[in-house]
């Protein structure tokens, strides 16, 4: 009989153990991926920041052609960034990502970015991580639900290793892939992200991606400039998203054979631009660093914003595998630097280009990817500079609002629609309002106290058209069984207090702000449930039954929120002892 080396693990334990392993494997894979991109770049473009233009004229189109052949013939699922593919794996394919796709993404992205296509390595890293997680989950025999959840765990690990920033990765996956703060997933995501970053640190070092001097806000004028950066960033993000989506549709509508040539065409365009502006080539991190160190005039930075938008849209829309994170950061850095440089004409303005470039990165991230929380935390994390948080928040929020105002759906949502998939929109999910108990409840019925004689109780019950609720003790509410009451009166027990006839467990109570599905679950076979005030369980604010709940779900709510009494009208007191909580019988609300 075979014995396992490890003790037999329950599925949640296995899930967590796998999360740790996925983090380690994703970290290793991303390290190899980053090195593969760098080596491809060295071989293809040479070891210079200003590559030989003649070399680019050969490498970019030929590289594009090779990538397109690989994508069209061998790895058809590696097109695009990888974020939507990971979401599709989770929501459409039960967490399934083929191992072949991971290999394909690794090779084609490394070749594309290394040859100079204007895309970045982060989104592919995310997909590689998700793919590894999916493969491991299936190999370990996880249930279908767990396999579906394990892909985002790998995605977080991949992204964390790519950015050297676990918080950003966790937030991004929560904001953009999962959409909810599920405790089960969150623990595993954090575990995998942290373990992958630890692995990446071991091999690539632990320094922040960008480093800027300590920042101090220079007064009102700087706030104004950050607001301008936010508005401009929002507009630039809009231009980028709309153009990218438009061109992608146009290019996909072309005959299928043109897909072999589209990446090469993008390569030709990039090589042409790179004759004068080699900064647009590749992911562009060294040039971001240069921009942050004042190596370009603000006019050059402004030109680079538009050139990078153009080249990235061409690369992305032509189906080249590669991510949008790095180009977004590049455009943001150049925009921030340009605005800072231009603002120096204002007397008394002493802003630092590096800081504005960094804030610009977050601004574009918020505007293009529409992940506001991620964008704020990412900038803090990649710079290791907390003092920058205030301008980042100002600028990001404005850019996010501007982008959302004029582009209803986020880029990833539209991309999934273009691909014929109906993936859940995390942005809409975040912002959709959930139905609550207060939307369904109706006014409190007659409340009968426990000492009331049975005959009187029956009389009042009849007068209340059969809807009354008993309140025998503080915070305890019970349903009155009319048949029991009538039988007691008929048996000559008219003077017996109501409290003696109440049988069965107390009713489950609800609070007005609880989600309506909670009410539905608790209702069971009851006709209704009492809704009590959170500050005083003895205060009945209404009742809710199946009919009211269904009315809300049908879109015809009662809207009785006004029934909830203001705390000041409750005469609240803090109970001093248990006796206070079960004190004497009291009549509340609309009772007699």
């Amino acid at each position, binding site marked *: 009989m075979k014995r396992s080396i490890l003790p037999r693990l329950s599925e949640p334990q296995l899930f967590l153990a796998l999360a740790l392993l996925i983090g380690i494997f994703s970290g290793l894979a991303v390290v190899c991926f980053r090195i593969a991109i760098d080596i491809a770049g060295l071989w293809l473009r040479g070891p210079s*920041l200003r590559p030989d233009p003649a070399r680019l004229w050969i490498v970019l189109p030929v590289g594009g052609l090779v990538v397109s052949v690989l994508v069209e013939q061998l790895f058809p699922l590696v097109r695009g960034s990888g974020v939507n593919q990971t979401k599709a794996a989770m929501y459409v394919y039960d967490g399934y990502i083929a191992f072949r796709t991971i290999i394909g993404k690794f090779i084609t992205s490394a070749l594309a970015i290394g040859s100079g296509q204007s895309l970045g390595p982060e989104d592919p890293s995310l997909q590689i991580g998700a793919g590894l997680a999916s493969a491991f989950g299936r190999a370990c025999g996880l249930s279908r639900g767990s396999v579906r959840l394990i892909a985002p765990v790998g995605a977080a690990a991949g992204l964390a290793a790519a950015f050297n920033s676990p918080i950003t990765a966790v937030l991004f996956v929560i904001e953009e892939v999962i959409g909810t703060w599920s405790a089960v997933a969150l623990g595993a995501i954090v575990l995998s992200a942290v373990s992958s970053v630890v692995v990446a640190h071991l091999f690539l070092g632990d320094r922040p991606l960008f480093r800027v001097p300590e920042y101090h806000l220079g007064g009102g004028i700087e706030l104004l400039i950050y607001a301008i950066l936010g508005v401009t960033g929002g507009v630039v993000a809009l231009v980028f998203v709309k153009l990218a989506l438009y061109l992608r549709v146009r290019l996909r509508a072309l005959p299928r054979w043109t897909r072999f040539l589209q990446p090469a065409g993008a390569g030709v365009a990039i090589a042409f631009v790179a004759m004068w502006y080699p900064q647009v080539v590749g992911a562009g991190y060294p040039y971001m660093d240069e921009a942050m160190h004042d190596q370009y005039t603000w006019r050059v930075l402004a030109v680079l914003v538009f050139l990078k938008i153009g080249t990235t849209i061409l690369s992305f829309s032509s189906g080249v595998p590669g991510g949008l994170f790095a180009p977004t950061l590049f455009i943001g850095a150049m925009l921030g630097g340009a605005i800072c440089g231009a603002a120096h004409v204002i007397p008394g303005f002493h802003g630092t280009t590096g800081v504005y470039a960094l804030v610009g990165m977050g601004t574009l991230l918020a505007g293009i990817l529409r992940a506001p929380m991620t964008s704020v935390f990412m900038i803090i994390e990649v710079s290791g500079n907390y003092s920058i948080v205030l301008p980042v928040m100002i600028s990001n929020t404005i850019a996010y609002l501007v982008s959302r105002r004029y582009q209803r759906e986020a880029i990833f949502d539209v991309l999934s629609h273009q691909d014929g998939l109906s993936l859940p929109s995390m942005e809409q999910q975040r912002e959709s309002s959930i139905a609550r108990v207060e939307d369904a409840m109706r006014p409190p019925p007659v409340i009968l106290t426990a000492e009331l004689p049975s005959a009187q109780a029956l009389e009042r019950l009849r007068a209340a058209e059969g809807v009354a609720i008993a309140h025998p003790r503080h915070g305890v509410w019970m349903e009155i069984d009319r048949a029991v009451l009538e039988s007691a009166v008929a048996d000559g027990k008219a003077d017996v207090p109501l409290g003696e006839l109440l049988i069965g467990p107390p009713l489950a109570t609800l609070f007005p702000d609880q989600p309506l599905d909670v009410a539905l679950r608790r209702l069971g076979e009851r006709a209704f449930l009492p809704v009590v005030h959170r500050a005083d369980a003895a205060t009945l604010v209404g009742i809710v039954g199946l009919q009211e709940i269904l009315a809300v779900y049908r879109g015809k709510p009662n809207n009785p929120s006004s029934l909830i009494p203001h705390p000041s009208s409750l005469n609240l007191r803090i109970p001093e002892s248990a006796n206070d909580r079960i004190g004497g019988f009291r009549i509340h609300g609309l009772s007699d």
Partner: protein
Amino acid sequence: MLVWLILAAVPFFIATAFITRAYHAQERRFAHQWRARGERAFSAGDPVTAAEAFRNALTFARDDGELKLELARALRASRRGFEARTYLLALRDEQPGDGPVNLELGRLAVEDRDPTAAIRYYHDAIEGAWRHEPEQARRGARLELAEFLVRDRVTAAAQAELISLAGDLPGDPAFEERVATLMVDADMPSRGLPILRTVLSSRPSAAAAAGRAAFALDQDALAERYLTAARAQGDADASIGEMLEVLELSRAADPFLARLPLRERIARAVRDLDAALARVDSCVNVPADSSNTLKHEIGRLRDELVRSRTVDPDLLQQTLQAVLRAETAAASCPQETSSDRALVRIAHRHQGAAQ
């Protein structure tokens, strides 16, 4: 399966370590190549090419502070101080007490003619950490600061730096000559001259500074000796010739000079008064009432001198005081000649003696 995955992680880890190691080695090679190329270009006086090479090197060695410093130096030499400053400030942010970084920032402040920033950065450099020959580097930094302050006429601050330097001289005659020369330029000839005299035997080029120091200290004989020696060495400084001329003229115009005959003393005093009068007449900046007062006094003294049969030291003293007043009143006029400077020198010297 979990066990197999754990086991599989080991070779994957080892393979990644091998790949990373090989890649980092390649990065270091590229960084070294670009750096060497940059250093060659910088040494050859081509800072633009050097900056480009250092930038390329930095892409392979992002954490190399020395490389950033070299890039900043190349950028500064390419007259791109603004760009250099950003790199230097980032380095200073990481290591506030780094001597070379603060020194470069100080040099940028000097180029910007910003004495406050220069003093701050140079002092941080002097008190900062140096990896190679720290004492020498600190002395060099202080000397640079002193040179800037002297050049920018921030005399009090320059004197403070020079006094600090004088207390810590390394026994290097060339360095001591520079310090002492700066002392002379920073109105501290009495401190500079002894140092210069000690280094003269090994540093003949110190003769000019020593001559200037002696000249400022009214040690005419010594000044003449050193200045003559400097000129004989081919020192083309025009001020040496002027000082020698002033010395010669003052010797010819001094009525108090020893062993002069009576007539000659009086004749010299009269000539001095005439020269002062001519200076006042030629200077339109002298107010009319002052001019008249001076002319009247000069006329009176001249008459008294012409009439005198003996040498009255008080009369000669009054004569030189009048000459000094006239020269002082006309000081705002630019046409000061060596003769005027000689007269002022004589008057100052004997005014001091009289007091």
